[in-house]
């Protein structure tokens, strides 16, 4: 109790200090509060649990039951609150990178802990770091790796990660040893092997701060991927290298001969490539698993996390490189699981990984700062520390420049000098170095604490100092920025064309270039890998061009709805613009396999309402989502009325109303398959009826209505090859419409759409049976209606939008029949005869 109260006093003084250090009051309060809880409860409840009870307690204080998880949770909370505080002020974060800020927070927290306990009670144990914190970060980084960029620069990344890391480890170790032998560090108990081990652990590059700066400044993607990819693989290589040297150290100097060294080198490669291979195996497993997880969509995303973690642990178990394993697992499975899983699961996975990775990153940095408060590790040796910092910077630069020079000999796009400089400068050391240093064995390495302390100083130096100067440096050097390219179909398509052209040229030259590999991998992937790892559905839709198309359409639809909603009216739904077309297409794509015919008809129907081919509306000077929605609305009112009537009568009414809204295993209640079935059956029935009646010749109107449908099924063929061919409807326009010139021009450009447009809505077979009521069957049921309306409001523009009137509608359908319909028995219909002359006069008219 006494201890505690003393601690509390110190805490409050620490709080004051904290306040004066401009960190923010709420942070210090909260953190000290958590401190209080963790320390005080520890003290005050010591004997409570063991006391025997004399009477039945209603509630008991059971701190010891929850102590460990509670402390863990509290620390996580504390660290995350640190992040929250660190991110509060953007003026600070724009100068000091977040990782540096978190380390500083760690200092403060450590001060508080130290003040309370007079000792370092909490620290980052290497086991925790390597088993619980690091895998998440690596999995996230590898899963979010820009795949194509990564693999196309894989060579350069590997050169830097493998050769560069070995170079750094070797040179730093040897140079330090040389200086030691030269007497720069006084008397230490360190041999060459220990120096090499130290060099190995110092070669782990941590990119968090650099990547954050890169993302902010948008550096060019090659630089980005080189630093990002290198640092990721480099961690794995460092651990492998560390283990090899560690084995050498425990073997002891005298026993090392050539055979052992060769074994060491072999082990290096076996461990690295074995780990990578294991990762690929796990990636295959994950991808195959996601093929069949459709029914357990809720936990789909969890599978990837668990299996990714298992790949890490398995590699660790086999003493292969765990980091490389999980890295390649994430990189390789990404494409397939994204294709296989539901879109929601993909998003979930992304977010969960991000939360976990950012969470553990935050904890790592805070604890890095926290570790500073440990008297034991501070064995100060100025020479050792300064020389270490000097050497890691110098050799990093040397390695980067040399390797890049080597790479530039064969690169199509050489790496600039500025990029190289930034790469060299981006060699910050981070948690992996600390974790490795902390897991040094004190029995084998007597100077462990010196190494640990030096590592910490190097980490602080690089993360804070280099991190702060990174951004000004990038801006000052004018590092090439990434070209911001929007997602366009043209870009995507032409990229594909370029790839094909390049491979063709390589073939013609008879040389095996980069594209040769890409192409052969693509071929192999298409043929075997996708077959193995992707669901058949995903295979169908995996084409990137199609993917872009899909994405663009989704965006449009979203924007369209948003803009329309902001007008405060649902009228926008009836507005015409490209978004509506795209939206409908979207819908059609999704339901194409379920009810293709309905969608066909729907699309025609829609064009029918429009009266003007939809594509031509796009060309209108009207903005894509018209500002004067209501004006447009008024114009199309008469059509809308009939359309609404039809839709109201015939559209299927959903039966979803009384379904439960909560489901344990689904995000939302999805479409009922029965409903789909019902819709389908209804449509088929009505079609059958209309078909029957057409066959019997009972009702001429049905016959008339059949042709557009036929037409629609032959749409692609029915499209005239010559775009300049004048369309019959263009001249109908000409006869009566004021702005006929423009509309006929439009019609000429969009013959296909036009063909289907007029009358299609009425002819939709799904709507036929109920239309029998209107007596003059020869005319479409709304003819009279429209005629009346025309008398009321025959505005100029309205006519422009209605290229036909009921009178000339009469000969529209037969006209098309004669020119386009493939239906022979319909051709024989009597109605054709008297319309034929009309057609001639029409076409004659156009030629004028």
């Amino acid at each position, binding site marked *: 109790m006494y201890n505690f109260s003393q601690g509390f006093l110190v805490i409050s003084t620490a709080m004051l200090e904290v306040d004066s250090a401009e960190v923010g009051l709420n942070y210090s309060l909260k953190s000290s509060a958590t401190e209080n809880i963790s320390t005080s409860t520890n003290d005050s409840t010591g004997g409570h649990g063991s006391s025997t009870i004399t009477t039945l307690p209603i509630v008991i204080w059971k701190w010891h039951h929850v102590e460990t998880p509670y402390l863990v949770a509290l620390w996580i909370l504390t660290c995350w609150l640190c992040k929250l505080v660190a991110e509060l002020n953007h003026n600070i974060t724009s100068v000091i990178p977040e990782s540096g800020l978190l380390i500083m927070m760690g200092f403060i927290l450590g001060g508080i802990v130290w003040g309370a306990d007079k000792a370092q009670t909490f620290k980052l144990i290497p086991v925790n770091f390597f088993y619980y914190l690091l895998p998440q970060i690596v999995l996230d980084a590898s899963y979010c790796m820009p795949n194509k960029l990564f693999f196309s620069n894989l060579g350069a990344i590997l050169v830097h990660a493998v050769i560069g890391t070995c170079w750094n480890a070797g040179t730093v170790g040897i140079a330090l040893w040389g200086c030691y032998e030269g007497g720069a560090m006084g008397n230490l108990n360190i041999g060459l092997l220990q120096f090499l081990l130290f060099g190995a652990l110092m070669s782990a590059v941590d990119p968090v701060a650099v990547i954050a700066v890169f993302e902010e400044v948008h550096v060019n993607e090659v630089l980005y991927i080189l630093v990002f990819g290198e640092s990721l693989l480099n961690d794995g290589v460092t651990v492998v290298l560390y283990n090899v040297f560690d084995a050498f150290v425990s073997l002891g100097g005298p026993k090392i001969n050539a055979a052992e060294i060769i074994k060491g080198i072999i082990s290096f490669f076996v461990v690295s490539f074995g780990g990578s291979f294991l990762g690929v195996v796990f990636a295959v497993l994950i991808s195959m698993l996601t093929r069949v997880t459709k029914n357990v969509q809720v936990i789909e995303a969890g599978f990837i996390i668990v299996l990714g973690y298992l790949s890490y642990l398995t590699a660790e178990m086999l003493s292969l490189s765990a980091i490389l394993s999980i890295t390649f697992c994430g990189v390789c499975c990404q494409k397939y699981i994204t294709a296989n899983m539901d879109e929601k699961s993909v998003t979930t996975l992304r977010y969960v990984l991000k939360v976990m990775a950012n969470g553990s990153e935050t904890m790592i940095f805070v604890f890095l700062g926290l570790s500073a408060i440990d008297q034991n590790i501070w064995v100060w040796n100025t020479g050792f520390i300064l020389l270490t910092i000097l050497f890691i910077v110098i050799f990093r630069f040397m390695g980067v420049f040399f390797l890049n020079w080597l790479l530039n000999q064969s690169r199509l796009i050489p790496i600039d000098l500025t990029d190289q400089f930034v790469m060299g400068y981006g060699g910050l050391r981070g948690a992996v170095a600390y974790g490795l240093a902390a897991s040094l064995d004190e029995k084998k390495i007597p100077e462990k604490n010196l190494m640990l302390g030096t590592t910490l100083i190097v980490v602080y130096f690089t993360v804070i100092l280099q991190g702060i100067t990174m951004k000004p440096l990038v801006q000052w050097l004018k590092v090439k920025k990434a*070209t911001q390219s929007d997602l366009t179909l043209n870009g995507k398509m032409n990229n594909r064309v370029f790839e094909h052209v390049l491979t063709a040229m390589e073939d013609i030259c008879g040389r095996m270039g980069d594209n040769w590999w890409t192409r052969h991998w693509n071929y192999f992937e298409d043929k075997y890998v996708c077959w193995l790892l992707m669901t058949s559905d995903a295979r169908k839709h995996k084409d990137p061009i199609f993917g872009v198309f899909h994405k663009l359409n989704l965006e449009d639809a979203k924007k369209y709805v948003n803009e329309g909603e902001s007008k405060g009216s649902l009228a926008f739904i009836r507005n015409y613009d490209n978004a509506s077309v795209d939206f409908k297409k979207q819908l059609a794509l999704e339901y194409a396999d379920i009810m293709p015919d309905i969608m066909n008809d729907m699309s025609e129907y829609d064009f029918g309402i429009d009266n003007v081919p939809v594509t031509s509306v796009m060309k209108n000077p009207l903005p894509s989502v018209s500002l004067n929605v209501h004006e447009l609305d008024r114009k199309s009112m008469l059509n809308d009325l009939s359309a609404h009537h039809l839709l109201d009568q015939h559209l299927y009414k959903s039966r979803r109303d009384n379904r439960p809204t909560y489901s344990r295993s689904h995000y939302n209640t999805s479409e009922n398959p029965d409903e789909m079935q019902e819709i389908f059956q209804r449509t088929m029935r009505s079609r059958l009826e209309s078909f029957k009646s057409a066959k019997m010749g009972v009702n001429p109107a049905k016959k008339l209505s059949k042709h557009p449908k036929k037409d629609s099924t032959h749409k692609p063929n029915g499209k005239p090859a010559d775009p300049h061919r004048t369309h019959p409807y263009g001249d109908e326009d000409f006869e009566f419409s004021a702005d006929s010139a423009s509309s006929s021009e439009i019609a000429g450009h969009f013959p296909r759409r036009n063909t289907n447009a007029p009358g299609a809505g009425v002819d939709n077979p799904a709507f036929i049976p109920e239309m029998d009521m209107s007596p003059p069957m020869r005319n479409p049921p709304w003819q009279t209606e429209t005629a009346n309306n025309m008398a009321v409001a025959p505005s100029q523009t309205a006519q422009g939008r209605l290229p036909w009137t009921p009178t000339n509608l009469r000969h529209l359908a037969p006209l098309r029949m004669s020119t386009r319909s493939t239906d022979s028995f319909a051709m024989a219909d009597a109605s054709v005869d008297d319309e034929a002359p009309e057609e001639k006069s029409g076409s004659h008219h156009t030629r004028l």
Partner: protein
Amino acid sequence: MGSTNSTLLKIPNVEVLMQETGLKLVAEENCLNVSPAHIIRLHDRFKALDKEGRGHLCPHDFGAIKELAMNPIGDRIIGAFFSPGKETVDFHTFVKILAHFRPVDKDRPKEPNSPEPINSRSNKLKFAFQLYDQDKDGKISRDELLQVLRAMLGMQVTDEQLESIADRTIQEADLDRDDTISFEEFRKSLEKINIDHKMSIRFLR
């Protein structure tokens, strides 16, 4: 050294060719001292393709390249080697076409009155453009676009989808609203793409 020189001399108009294409313009003054390895290599390849030794290539010589047959737009690319109305391509033209894909050299001095190098951005784009524009009317029509798309996308998408993709692509690039893509529009639509990187082959450097 002698052998390379003699090989070079066998190739007709070699100096003109190097001037025009910019292939290996290293040290102009001692042009024949530095082995223009690329030209020789291409000439070897040319001879290998020209199995009957006629000194020119016909479309079926290209068709004999196995990998090219796999290329979905391979026939268009072959077609690009033959100027309209001609059935053959000689070595000169062959190299000139390939020179489109030489990476742009930055350190080469820019003479203001020199003609535009054959590997310039717009020339690279022109090459790509004519792959679409089969009827050579200077415009990519919807049909032409559709053909290329169909070749590239293969069986994965339906005709319906293909058409809507084509429509949308044209819409995206089409600035003057004539429902075709002219070269100017084509160039505008690819403004943000680094053509120098995407249309260059390393070993032609």
